């Protein structure tokens, strides 16, 4: 069941194309990552979902209905450029945003209570936003995004400006919201930061989607049968089964990345290596990082175009 189904979205600003034939389907209850470098078109796409702007062409379904203004009540949006009214009291501000999202004042107060207890912010409510630290402001902004319990939560570069502790709090909250049935869409240019969190991703580059699918599938698809071995003893060398890509040595401990000459099982590989006089400390399959996949995918796309 898809919460968002976008087909062939095009968007052009005065002189440049922001989105070109984008198809994206977001499964309900999943965490979806929109990845791509700055200026790729992620924010443009998000602004179309949140109805801040409209696509020049293409269709968007929200829960099987054509996207329309009533749906904004079911979305929560944390823009990349954060902002709160600095002179306004925290409590009033949160209620104001919730009311703009269609909650009654009473309902908003009720739901706010949950977050007050959770983040222990009771003392902040009567303060002006400008009196809070940046981390506190980020939390307030996050509460403002989710207070009306949206079905779809869209977070544009959610981790920028968060310190590691607050990032972890945010991740925990996101996972909790997912458990409660919300769908979360991320956008970020720091591709490695969300690959552990996301179920699905789409890679966007220069207004075009170059790749999408479940994270695990993509990783498998792009893996290059590379392994990383950490060991002591004499350094490994290439032979008829393995090709050593590189070896690093630190304090008598070697880290070697190798690829297979022929397709063999992992057990066979370990047996083969153990023929050498070494003591294995660590062994893992080296999957490409999202960034590496991105680069490969962009190159493939370019090759495809040039061919």
């Amino acid at each position, binding site marked *: 069941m898809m919460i968002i189904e976008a087909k062939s979205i095009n968007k052009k600003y*005065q002189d440049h194309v922001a989105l070109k034939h984008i198809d994206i389907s977001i499964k309900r209850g999943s965490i979806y990552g929109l990845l791509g470098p700055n200026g790729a078109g992620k924010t443009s796409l998000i602004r179309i979902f949140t*109805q*801040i702007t409209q696509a020049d062409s293409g269709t968007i379904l929200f829960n099987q209905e054509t996207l329309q203004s009533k749906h904004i009540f079911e979305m929560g*949006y944390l*823009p990349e450029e954060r902002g709160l009214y600095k002179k*306004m009291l925290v409590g009033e501000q949160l209620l*104001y945003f919730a009311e*703009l*999202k269609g909650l009654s004042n009473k309902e908003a107060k009720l739901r706010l209570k949950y977050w007050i207890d959770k983040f222990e912010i009771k003392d902040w409510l009567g303060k002006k936003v400008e009196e809070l630290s940046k981390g506190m402001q980020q939390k307030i902004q996050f509460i*403002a995004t989710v207070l009306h319990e949206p079905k779809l939560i869209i977070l544009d570069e959610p981790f920028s400006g968060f310190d590691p502790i607050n990032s972890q709090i945010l991740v925990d909250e996101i996972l909790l919201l997912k458990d409660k049935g919300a769908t979360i869409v991320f956008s970020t240019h720091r591709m490695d930061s969300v690959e552990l969190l996301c179920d699905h991703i789409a890679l966007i580059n220069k207004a075009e989607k170059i790749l999408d699918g479940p994270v695990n599938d993509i990783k498998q698809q792009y893996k290059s049968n590379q392994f990383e071995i950490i060991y002591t003893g004499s350094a490994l060398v290439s032979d008829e089964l393995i090709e050593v890509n590189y070896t690093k040595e630190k304090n008598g401990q070697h880290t070697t990345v190798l690829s297979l000459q022929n397709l063999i099982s992992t057990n066979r590989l370990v047996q083969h290596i153990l023929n050498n006089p070494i003591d294995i400390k660590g062994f893992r399959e080296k999957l490409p990082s999202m960034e590496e996949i991105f680069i490969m995918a962009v190159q493939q796309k370019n090759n495809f175009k040039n061919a």
Partner: protein
Amino acid sequence: MHKIWLISKREYLTRVRKKSFIIMTFLSPVLIALFYGIIIYFSINKEIADDNKHIVVSDESGVFLNNLKSNKSITFSYRNVTESEIKNILKNGSVYGVLMVPDSLSKESSKIRLLVNEQPSLNTITNIENQLEILLKNKKLSENGIDKKILHEINQTSVEINTVKLTDNGSENGNSGVTTLIGFAGAILIYFFIFLYGVQVMKGVIEEKTNRIVEVIISSVKPFQLMMGKIIGIAFVGLTQFILWIVLVALLSIPVSALVMNFMDVGTEALTKGNDTLNQAKNAGVENFLSDLGNFNFGLLIGMFIFYFISGYLFYGALFAAVGSAVDNETDTQQFMMPITMPLIFSIALAQSVVVNSPNGSLSVWLSMIPFSSPVVMMVRLPFGIPTWQIIASMICMALGFIFTVWLAGRIYRIGILTYGKKPTYKEIWKWFISKN
């Protein structure tokens, strides 16, 4: 509508609760009252501003001898002084000046000299001149055998034309100075309201842009709703402030005017000559004033004032909002403010000259039709009595005008608020305006 209401409520409450609003609202009438109180006080008691000055009168003609009245700031004493003595007398320090009156005065009054160490104030000179003039006049009257009383009566002749306008419903009395003044006050109020609160709208929009809050809001409401909510909210802030000012000024004016009246009595008592004339003129003026007020259709004037007050503010407020949306900071607004403020300044300037002098001239009629100038110009024209069709036409133009500017501003605003970076050119703003979304 609900969202516009929510937004204007927020705008209203956050602004009204600001310290600066409270201080401005309560302090400025006090300051203005104080300011005018001081001005009125000193203008009535001019002498207070001057220290007492001792002037020695050397009157060879004998006309003024012992006839000049001393007051708080000037004391006259009389003795004949020769030219050579003057310097010594002034050197002494206790004497401020020596008034030298020559022997023969009939033709050459200009020969009267006041010799001083330092330039005397205008007040001092006028005071002495006035006294000399009256004494000299009286002398000439008696020399020529003219009865003072007869002359006084002749001088009192005054003619006032009572204008009567013939209308379809019979006749109604025309306007005079008082109603013109009321119309003018209305025009100035509208002018200030548009300026003060239009700029507030613009600043508010810029604030939302620089705080980067706008995108959060725009994901919940339409840009147009945000803009209208802001404009309406600020309008209510302005109205609140104006109403409080009127109430406060009314309350304050009681003690202030009592104070002024008190000084006035002292002042008038001090006037020895022409007292009756002054009072009579005053009474006539008050009568005219009251009859003017009675004759004039105040319902129309107040109704029109409210209409132009609100529509004029909406008309300009929307434009100010568009300017705010187009720029990132206040320093960049100058270029775009010009085309908005110029017509407003232009209309208040013309209202004071052309419109008042020729309220039914073609320029005045045109200015009262164009929405840029009509709120100000119409208020000035109204007391002179203008055809009903012109009022209706002007109101229709105004209504169409503000619908148009609100629409135009909305189109610029929706793109402007999400556009950051360098200051846009007029060409770019035009592109925003025509772009689909």
